[in-house]
């Protein structure tokens, strides 16, 4: 059983990432429920997806109950911590998308160091990942969401096998498959290497 909480900003491919996780779970013979909350905006608002793998019936993850938080944006990482506990692993893309409220209401966007301190105060592990850079190295700048799926898979927390994720990527994004699998591999290595240390 694993409760995975995916957060970020509209337009980052979070819903696609959650579908890859869902299909990987089905391929792995597990029950899975996905939910998505994206409010009114087509782009630019906070997006929350949940993936609950295992014997569950309700799709939402109660506060403090996520096993893994996969955050696609630095500020949203802080917002997601209401779902974290002492055992939670937090993977965050270091990408920053500055909301308009920072400009208009003169609010402060947190630094990477502040996010790290806050995550480590509450959760078990913190994995910052430069997903955009890894995606560019894989020659598909659009695929930072797949890098993040790779990082999720690399931790082993989902209990699913690598090949199931790879097959799920093929099912969901048939275009640019070798490049996307490369992006997945780069994300996978980023956390599997750290997981062993």
């Amino acid at each position, binding site marked *: 059983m694993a409760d995975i909480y995916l957060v970020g900003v509209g337009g980052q491919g979070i819903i696609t990432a959650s579908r890859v996780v869902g299909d990987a779970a089905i391929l792995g013979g597990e029950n899975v429920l996905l*939910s998505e*909350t994206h409010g*009114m905006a087509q782009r630019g608002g906070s997006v929350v997806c949940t993936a609950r793998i295992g014997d569950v019936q309700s799709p939402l993850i109660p506060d403090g109950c996520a096993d893994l938080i996969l955050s696609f944006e630095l500020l949203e990482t802080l917002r997601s911590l209401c779902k974290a506990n002492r055992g939670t692993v937090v993977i965050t893309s270091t990408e920053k998308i500055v909301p308009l*409220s920072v400009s208009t209401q003169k609010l402060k966007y947190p630094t990477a160091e502040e996010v790290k301190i806050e995550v480590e105060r509450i959760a078990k592990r913190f994995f910052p990942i430069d997903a955009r850079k890894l995606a560019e190295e894989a020659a598909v700048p659009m695929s930072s969401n797949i890098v993040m799926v790779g990082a999720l898979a690399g931790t082993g927390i989902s209990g699913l096998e690598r090949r199931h994720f790879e097959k799920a990527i093929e099912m969901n994004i048939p275009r640019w498959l070798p490049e996307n699998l490369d992006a997945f591999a780069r994300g996978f290595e980023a956390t599997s290497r750290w997981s062993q240390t």
Partner: protein
Amino acid sequence: MLLLGNEAIARGALEAGVAVATTYPGTPASEIGDALARVAKDAGIYFEYSANEMVATEIAIGAAASGVRALVSMKHVGVNVAADALMTFAYTGTRGGFVLVTADDPSCHSSQNEQDNRYYALLGGIPLLEPSSPQECYEMTKEAFELSERLELPVILRTTTRISHVRGPVVVGRIVQGLKRKEFIKDPKRFVTVPAVARARHLVLLERLREAERLSEESHLNKVQRIGTGARIGVITSSAAFNYVADAAKALGVPVDVLKLGFPHPLPNRLVIDFLRSHDRVAVVEELEPILETSVRAVAQHESINTKIVGKADGILPRAYEFDQAIVASGLVRAFGLRGDVAKEAVIDLQNLPVRPPVLCAGCPHSAVYFAVNKATNRKAIFASDIGCYTLGVAAPYNAADLLVCMGSSVGTAGGLAKVNDLPVIAFIGDSTFFHAGIPGLINGVHNGHKFLLMILDNRTTAMTGHQPHPASDTGPSCCNITSVSIEEVVKGCGVRWLRVVDPYDIKTTTETVKEALRQEGVSVIIARRECALIAERDEKGAILKKHEIDQEVCKKCRTCVEKFQCPAISSTNKVQTIDEALCAGCGVCAQVCPHKAIKETR
């Protein structure tokens, strides 16, 4: 396969051999229609995006009254629009299966209210099914058609956001080709509801409801599920609440018997009576209104059952917003005096984090309109807004919405506002919303001599719900023979004498046109026409547009571009304004907004 609840409903309809399906898009129902639109031609069904929910319902009624199966889907507030047709269709009844899907939105994730549409089933005397999972969405859609034909009544299938927008495993069957055409057999004593017919048909409806109750008693959709063994306590529940009950009971480690009602109206009275009699204490767990609770209490009173019933009347569960596992767990703890600490302490203070509310996209033509209108009026105007992406103009810096209640309300309320206010009144309505509910208000304004400016924000699509077509579109589902209806011709046909069409990316012309419009007597109309920036980007029409940058040597740091204009690509950090090239849509509006000509095309 892994299906969204909405996709599972579409699949169920195809397997039920549906012939005609209609919708007006609205979150969280939109994906039902979108899924059917994609496959309509291949599946040999007729699907259309109708002008509004009333028309969508009437199309489906025409088909079902003839004897084929018809599905109409909409968001909860859409049923308010469709209700006039639906209430009386229950009197005539149907020949072919007729299923109306209402997707409710507890917590108003993307809606103007969180009304509980189960009341429509009670109000109209219409059987109601409520699935709890994507698998049940699929199965109950098929059952709904069977039930509708057996009872010759319309059936309501009600979901909520957490049913429609949950993706889960669904085991599907084979798609069946149902009857696609059927000669309408005339029967005016049934289908023409003049008063004499209506009076007779009401009795028929009541008789059918008694039959429906018998089916509800026998239905496998209403069943007791045991979580753990030896439970003395019981829960009566339906829809999404059932899932939270199941997970909460497991988390609390308490055995509970659950009467899950997938077919809650008409209420299976005998089943409820037996359940009450066999438990010491029963909680009714349902989101929003205490509808089951009130019915269950009525049954208990009628049967003189002493079982303690707890629910919203006792304050154990809230009447507003959607539930989750924690809310239901805490409700169960209070209902049954259980031990269990379910409240988590806040581990992080979210108050000081910069908020990320929904915003208009980079390159959004609505942004340009609102900037121009504020410039033209110096913010001395009253803004009657409407339902669509453009409602987001309510936020700073535009503050371009003062009154909004429903689809089409901009035009009607503008007339009322203008009658009693001195400030000029400007109504904003989207292209799709104009066709949906704006036209009668416009005709009324012209006829009764109201004075206001109506701005039709024409981005050539129904953007907020996922870019569905509307009557002015020149393409649509491949099964439809599409004709584009001209907004200009409709406006003129409504009797409007002063009409202009502007490109909102041209700030100067738009501003001057608004000023001129406000000098007119009667109703003036401006169509601000520019394709949705996301469509332009998708179709790569944006390639002709040039990305922009701020020349920091020319920039006077006056902050006009972030305080009077709003673009997600422009940010201001450490007092320096910059444009994120990756986000810039190249609309060039910011270059017109900047008073110092510091924003230029990127070389």
